[in-house]
């Protein structure tokens, strides 16, 4: 279904937290370019999609977000 803009922002924040917790995503505090952050986030989304056997698009689509919202173990899925 179409996503309400505020909901979208919320979803991105949720996804960012998830990727920080479980996929070693580090937000570079001093990165000036929003696009850079989204790029790096897309990489991490791809990693997560590949781990769960989802279609690897790098996009925060519905299936990817649904998987992120599943109850789960607190240990990261990948470690640097």
């Amino acid at each position, binding site marked *: 279904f179409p996503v309400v803009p505020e909901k979208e922002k919320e979803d991105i924040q949720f996804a960012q937290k998830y990727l920080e917790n*479980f996929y070693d995503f580090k937000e570079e505090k001093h990165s000036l370019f929003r696009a850079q952050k989204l790029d790096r986030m897309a990489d991490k989304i791809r990693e997560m999609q590949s781990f769960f056997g989802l279609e690897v698009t790098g996009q925060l689509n519905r299936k990817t977000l649904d998987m992120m919202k599943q109850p789960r*173990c607190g240990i990261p899925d990948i470690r640097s």
Partner: protein
Amino acid sequence: YSTFPHSPKWKKEDVTYRILNYTPDMLQADVEEAIARAFQLWSSVTPLRFTRLYGGQADIMISFAAGFHGDFYSFDGPGGTLAHAYPPSSGIGGDAHFDEDENWTKFTTHSGFNLFLVAAHELGHSLGLGHSNVFGALMYPVYMARDTRDYQLHQDDIDGIQALYGPPRESPVLPTKAFPPQEPTELTTAEAPTETSSREETTENTPSKPPSRPEDCDPHLTFDAITTLRGEILFFKGSYVWRKSPYFSEIEHDTISSFWPSLVAGFDAAYEVDKTDRVLFFKDNQYWAVSGYSIESGFPKPIQNLGFPTNIRKIDAAVHDHNTKKTYFFVGNKYWSYNENTKSMERGYPRKIAADFHGIGHTVDAALQKNGYFYFFHGSNQYEVDIKRKKLIRTMKSNSWFNC
């Protein structure tokens, strides 16, 4: 499977554990039983032996806590993260923490988390395993409610833990059936085996393993039941499910229990009423209604509720016609027509299948409606029938949907 960086593991076979506190959600005895069973899963496939301590420092300290609880990984309230555990080492190494904000239970329900399943997963970490991306493995990071009565480790989990500790020294210690049935759910069929609650000796009989899943392109592949479900097509055989999605070209393989843990395997028939987002499963003289993962309360119900005479003890196949809102039930060489609007069997049935569906002169194992056609499956063949004219168009192999 995966391990932690540098593959830390216990350098001894005798590992101790201690339960520091309990969740108010469960009886203390049930918490202890769930954790003991979880340890037994791993001891049955490795040389490891686990001894419980009642005081002092144990290798694996087990506790329940909410929110911030003294390490750098605070819990997050209900849902989300359920628990975590540390890889083998001194100090906090091996310890397992469970989020007290979750609803812990000894059953498999859709409203709580089964402590045995989550504990078994976390103890995998306590012994050195990381997460696995194999769907259905215990070390898969996402919680999946499943039937735990005869729970067995996935081969991927066994491969992982034996890569760290090797196989058990003597023949595997089989889990005793000493525990009372853990899941007296009302959803079990009358034939469900009843477990004794008295302590039994370990027997040599290994629990019977379900037959392995036939290959997708096995020319002799037959199906018990087939249904659509939210745009996908699910093919059932025994406990196995082949899933064809309009979004992915690959066929996904699952088991019935990974979607509906409390349903028995081996359906007779299944059909979807898409307008109500409802799928009905039939086995023997009972049927269940599900919507996605959730099983509607009040089921199973006897098939007589749908209007079948009492002499009908099971059905062969069912298919719902989305256009006419009629559902056809196939039994032997006859079929019934059920009106989903009036919730009643139509008059004048049963009728002979061959009389109305030209070219279909045999029983129907499974049935499907797709793209304006009915597909009647019989053995390893399927018959495409034009719904309006009820005329046979062509015959194909039953597994032609699998891109063979």
